[in-house]
């Protein structure tokens, strides 16, 4: 095990959606550089429990960067200082001894805070429910190899489908826009022949739901792409806009 760190943590504490929150300051010491950021919070929480305090609530599950549950805004950046990683894959070797680290929840009116660092991201589920699918019932399918797909398109569709739905793109955007999330699903399906049939209705329905949830307009700053832990490309937004406008102009 490598060096140990002593750190000052300023963490957002908020009892529930209705109550106002504020920052609390905590000291942690003897943090191994091999720990993940969440394991460092575990250490703090077990100490808080032993001291009779309420531990910091935060979302986390797989701790291997794929479930999209962890969602900390660290030193002003979603998932912290490193590119291409979620909070659970951020390790303490990225921090210096004596550093002060500020931890907040995702900030967006469409993601209300539930408690401390936990926010409600069910708006994303509703955007998918509005059209993020191909309407094929179980049993409808033909043989998988009866539909050859150009490898480049398949690879691009996969790259868009790699979105983990964490919401970092919304948290990074000054307008709290969900364009990157929504466009990733629209792109994935638009790039595949199976997705063509419903492409127009899909783009319109998902964009309408996105607006209804209260997400803002695209800020065109590219912060979403820069902060996305899965490197989802902003080109997806351009593709979504093309799909959306062509759907709007050709609608009956």
């Amino acid at each position, binding site marked *: 095990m490598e060096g140990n760190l002593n750190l000052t943590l300023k963490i957002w504490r908020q009892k529930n959606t209705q109550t106002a929150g504020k920052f609390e300051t905590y000291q942690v010491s003897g943090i191994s550089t091999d720990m993940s950021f969440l394991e460092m919070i575990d250490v703090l929480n077990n100490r808080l429990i032993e001291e009779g305090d309420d531990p910091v609530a935060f979302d986390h599950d797989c701790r291997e960067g794929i479930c999209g*549950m962890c969602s900390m805004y660290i030193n002003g950046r979603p998932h912290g200082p490193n590119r*291409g990683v979620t909070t659970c894959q951020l390790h303490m070797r990225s921090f210096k001894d004596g550093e002060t680290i500020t931890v907040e929840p995702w900030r967006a009116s469409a993601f209300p805070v539930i408690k401390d660092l936990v926010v409600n991201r069910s708006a994303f589920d509703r955007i998918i429910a509005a059209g993020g699918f191909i309407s*094929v019932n179980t049993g409808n399918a033909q043989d*998988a190899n009866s539909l050859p797909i150009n490898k480049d398109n398949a690879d691009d*569709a996969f790259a868009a489908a790699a979105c983990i739905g964490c919401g970092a793109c919304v948290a990074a955007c000054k307008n709290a826009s969900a364009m990157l999330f929504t466009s990733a699903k629209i792109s994935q399906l638009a790039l595949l022949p199976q997705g063509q049939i419903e492409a127009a209705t899909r783009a319109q329905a998902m964009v309408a739901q996105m607006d209804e949830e209260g997400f803002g307009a695209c800020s065109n700053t590219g912060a979403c792409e820069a902060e996305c832990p899965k490197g989802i490309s902003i080109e997806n937004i351009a593709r979504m806009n093309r799909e959306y406008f062509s759907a709007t102009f050709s609608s009956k």
Partner: protein
Amino acid sequence: MTKIDAKIPDGNLAEKWTKFKSSVPLVNPSNKRSLEIIVVGSGLAGASAAASLAELGYKVKVFCFQDSPRRAHSIAAQGGINAAKNYQNDGDSVYRLFYDTIKGGDYRAREANVHRLAEVSGSIIDQCVAQGVPFAREYGGLLSNRSFGGTQVQRTFYAAGQTGQQLLLGAYSALQRQVGMGNVELFTRHEMLDVVTIDGKARGIIARDSVSGALERHFGHAVLLCTGGYGNVFYLSTNAMGSNVTAAWKAHKKGAFFANPCYTQIHPTCIPVSGDHQSKLTLMSESLRNDGRIWVPKKENDTRKANEIPEDERDYYLERRYPAFGNLVPRDIASRAAKERCDAGFGVGSSKMAVYLDYAAAIIRYGKGEANKHNMHSPTDEEIQSMGKAVVKEKYGNLFDMYKQITGEDPYEVPMRIYPAVHYTMGGLWVDYNLMTTVPGLYALGEANFSDHGANRLGASALMQGLADGYFVIPYTIGAYLAAEIRTPSMSTDSEDFVNAEKAVRDRLETLMNIKGSKPVDYFHKRLGKIMWDECGMARSEKGLKASIKEIQALQKEFWSDVKIPGEINNLNPELEKAGRVADFLELGELMCIDALDRNESCGGHFRTEFQTEDGEALRDDDKYAYVAAWEYEKQSIFKLHKEELKYENIKIAQRSYK
């Protein structure tokens, strides 16, 4: 004694499922609309079942403890999904997938279920492609395959190292489509805390809304548990932090038998433990064994760096011991072989509890291949390295990145250090051919049941089974039960049975909160995990198991008198949720040891040190132990064994050999 009846249809193995489908009672569309089904868990099994049943017209409610159904731990499955498509023309068939699975499971799985699994495997791939799952493809636009352990064909379909994610997002999309259409009602951040039975049949659940802490009663004509496995009983595993046995354990205490609880899969290629702070372990996909070579130094306690050890001083022990399958032996065998080398003093890394997984040879092989492809006649070593690394990156890039993130080492330059870790549980709720537990109306799907993998699961078969159960099995088999339920109206949840069930759940939560002891939940979980790993992990013995049962019983008492849970009962309280789960793990751990003690043989993932061949392979006892151990809960620490005899009518049962 309750007789357990697996309800396996008559007839030839290959015709059982076809005949069953043609003769199972049906529910007409208008009756489906008034039948309610509860699905607990939203992973591959749960999401696919819920979507498919809603498409058929049933009224479905889905519950998951995460904030979205898309987070279920199926999302983390890496390597791939098997299907007997034979697209590679390499001799695959339904029978061969069936045979490989039975053999891989060390002849402890039920023939009829496994054959059905192999039969429907192809339809799964068709369905997923139709949903827009972006599987890896070749330049001709057709689907690509790779190999996994325990097979000699290429039947694994994949999407980089994120196959589980893509399959789950496909099933999630299908589920959300039904949510949008109003056919499925979704309850996220809800944890099932009991099954409600009325007149012996499952009729609903008690769930806790994690945000408000409120307890809710929900009625269903049938309840499906798709709640995954229980690997977290070991504290450290590759499971997600929230993965738990609670739903299955509550069902067990309400009468559902628990089958083969000791069958645990220890996955050979995981990132080794780095310290006491560790909260979970991370898998490095089995697909890496396609191209990587596993080795340790030939010299005991060798302290040189990997790159300083010359080729002839390396022991590629899997290739040495198992030349026919080499690095692609099944998981249980690869894990034990790694443990054997480390225990003998040949381990590497600072802990000496690791072996190397080396990509140097693969990088050169791929680099030379690329040079040929590009007509480069005398490429430099640098060019070969750079082109080889690019190919490896395309195939396994996300895994290599993950390794680097966690360890701080670059696996393109130095071999990865790996060690076995708890990954999957073959045991689970006992189910019949219809996937119904011993409680009528209560079903278990996916990893939550025991049915298809025997004593060891082959790689890329968990995704196959979860989706088979959800898309193609339960939509048919549930008809056998619900056809007789069409006259049962939706029941009020104000009945005594529901009220009492809710009260019992509330009492237990209050008891936990009121202990006000001195130790956090994790303290007990870690201690349980250590007992389980040391004595009920990769090697088990009569002496160790007997001592463990006593230790676990003592730990249960300590937990219920000294656990400290902060916060409030009526608010988001992750510690309270965890405490309930660990309380259940403490009971399950005891049963696992009891089961391991009962099974006086070694098979698959269950290795009793007293029962091994001269060269250290698992020694089965087919005369005495060719049965499924189905345990009935009687009272605290008292479980009654029921045996389902396994009959092999189509496969000649043999000593498993991968040499």
